[in-house]
């Protein structure tokens, strides 16, 4: 009798504690490939600038010789600067700006979404209608409008991309949070007169990490694309700074003469965004299986 009991009980206890989100993400092949791809580019972008005059002999803005010469490993660009040096130096700003913009968007969006879901009433209406207005302008057009007024500067780009992410994050957060706030443990906290911010941070937030993680990955991919695009349009980082998006813009007219000036940054951006999209996809699958196992 007792042996049967233990037999029937053990599988149940296993089911009740499924492996953590991180473990389930890493178990997928997609996530491993994605991590490897993004990892390579992040390492390159972070350590590239440190190697600089030592590895190639030139800094990223120094003139190495005449334009479009096959000097060095990948030759020189339209102004005669070393392509490899500029490539190594050009990724960090993109990564930092994208991370800051994503962070800002996630922070504002999560806070607004949780408040809207928890408070309801007029605050909910105001936040969600404000969302609708921001969503009526395409992200890039909104960014261009801000850049016209404030000028093409790093903080403007970060701020405007962050702000355009916020309403999209807020929508996801609100719908995820409104399912959680009706749960009994939230009611219980309310009855103990726990402060509102504490309920949101301790009871609601941990229960919506799944959708938020997916949103984080998605927003990071879009931030990288948006910021690189602005630089490509000549409205993000300004010359003579080394930046992948800007490099593509500077060298694309001479692609037949000097393909590396375009190919290296294009390849890096492509690997980076594909990698982060693969990770996001793996996170989405992992958090979907959590929902099912609940």
């Amino acid at each position, binding site marked *: 009798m007792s042996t049967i009991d233990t037999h029937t009980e053990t599988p149940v206890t296993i089911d009740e504690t499924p492996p953590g989100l991180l473990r389930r993400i890493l178990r997928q092949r997609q996530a491993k490939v994605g991590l490897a791809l993004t990892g390579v580019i992040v390492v390159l972008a972070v350590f590239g600038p440190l190697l600089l005059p030592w590895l190639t002999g030139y800094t990223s803005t120094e003139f190495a010789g005449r334009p479009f010469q096959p000097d060095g490993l990948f030759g020189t660009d339209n102004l005669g600067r070393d392509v490899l040096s500029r490539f190594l130096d050009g990724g960090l700003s993109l990564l930092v700006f994208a991370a800051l913009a994503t962070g800002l968007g996630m922070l504002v969006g999560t806070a607004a979404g949780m408040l809207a879901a928890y408070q309801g009433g007029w605050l909910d209406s105001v936040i969600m209608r404000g969302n*609708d*207005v921001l969503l*009526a*302008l*395409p*992200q*890039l*057009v909104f960014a*261009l*409008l*801000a*850049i*016209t*007024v*404030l000028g093409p500067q790093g903080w403007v780009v970060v701020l405007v991309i962050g702000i355009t992410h916020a309403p999209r994050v807020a929508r996801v957060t609100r719908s995820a949070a409104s399912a959680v706030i009706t749960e009994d443990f939230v009611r219980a906290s309310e009855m103990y007169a726990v402060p509102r911010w504490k309920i949101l941070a301790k009871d609601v937030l941990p229960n919506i990490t799944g959708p938020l993680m997916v949103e984080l990955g998605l927003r990071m*991919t879009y931030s*990288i*694309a*948006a910021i*690189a*695009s602005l630089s*490509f*349009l*000549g*409205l993000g980082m300004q010359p003579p700074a080394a930046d992948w*998006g800007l490099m*593509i813009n500077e060298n*694309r007219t001479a*692609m*037949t003469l000097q*393909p590396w000036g*375009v*190919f290296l940054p*294009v390849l890096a*951006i*492509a690997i980076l*965004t*594909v990698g*982060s*999209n*693969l990770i996001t*996809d793996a996170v989405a699958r992992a958090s979907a299986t959590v929902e099912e196992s609940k």
Partner: protein
Amino acid sequence: MLGVILRRLSISAVILLVVSMLVFVATLLLPGDPAQAILGQQATPERLAALREQMNLNDPFIQRYLDWLGGLFVGDFGSSTASGGSVGALLGDRVVNSLVLMVAAAVISIPVGIIVGTYSALRRGKAGDHAATGISLVLAALPDFVIGIVLVALFSTTVFRVLPSVTIAAPGEHVWDYPGQLILPVLTLVLVVIPYIIRMMRTTMIEVLDSGYVEMARLKGVPERQVIWRHALPHAIAPVAQVVAIQLAWLAGGIVIVEFLFRYPGMGQALVDAVTNRDVQVVQALAMLIAAVYVVVNLLADIVGIMTNPKLRTGGMR
């Protein structure tokens, strides 16, 4: 149903109104004087005063906003800060050019996306499905300009040199007089938009194929071809319409990058030039135009959604 649609319509109108305020306030934040910008540093105070009077810069802010808003409805977009010319005349042809690009991209990507998505769903888990899913995952991740540059490298510079990578349109000619130069910009837009359509089509089609009524039809002995065309496909299209609309609305913003890349004389190219020159009147007009396209397409999608949703369709009759 009519009530729901009217409600939705008024929401869109209010949203556009608020967007117009947002766009107009942007001018007030701008340092400097538009009259000075047009006439340059050497302008005499008299001419500056005259131009300010002509541009109504002395009027109170609310008055200027209402004038500008009223002008939008009759096609008067004000005059360019950089050139002094009429913004409406500057944009007329470009709007048409951009619409050509958007419509061509939509006409190609919607059917192809639906077909590939359906194919992928029918061959779930097999090689064809894996290929379609993998490619759309990669395409969805790539920024638009990366896709464009790769196409340029493949077809017009490094690998083959078969297609032009720059759009040339002499005054008096139309961009569609040379169809070859439209191929790469349209292809870029198609590749940017299509992964989302494929994914959504695949997901909904799989859901529908697993549903009870499709199983019922199969058990009844309805031929498989008819099951797919008559029973499954129509039900899978409705949610895809929403995604298609979002993508079309997205095209309104996405053309900016593609037009800049291919030097295509459209709204997007004009917008980038205007931002570079800080030509506020043009930026305002284009932002409003693009926002209007965006809002209208979303509105149409919602109306289609309301009309195909039986719960809402019958709701108005009670």
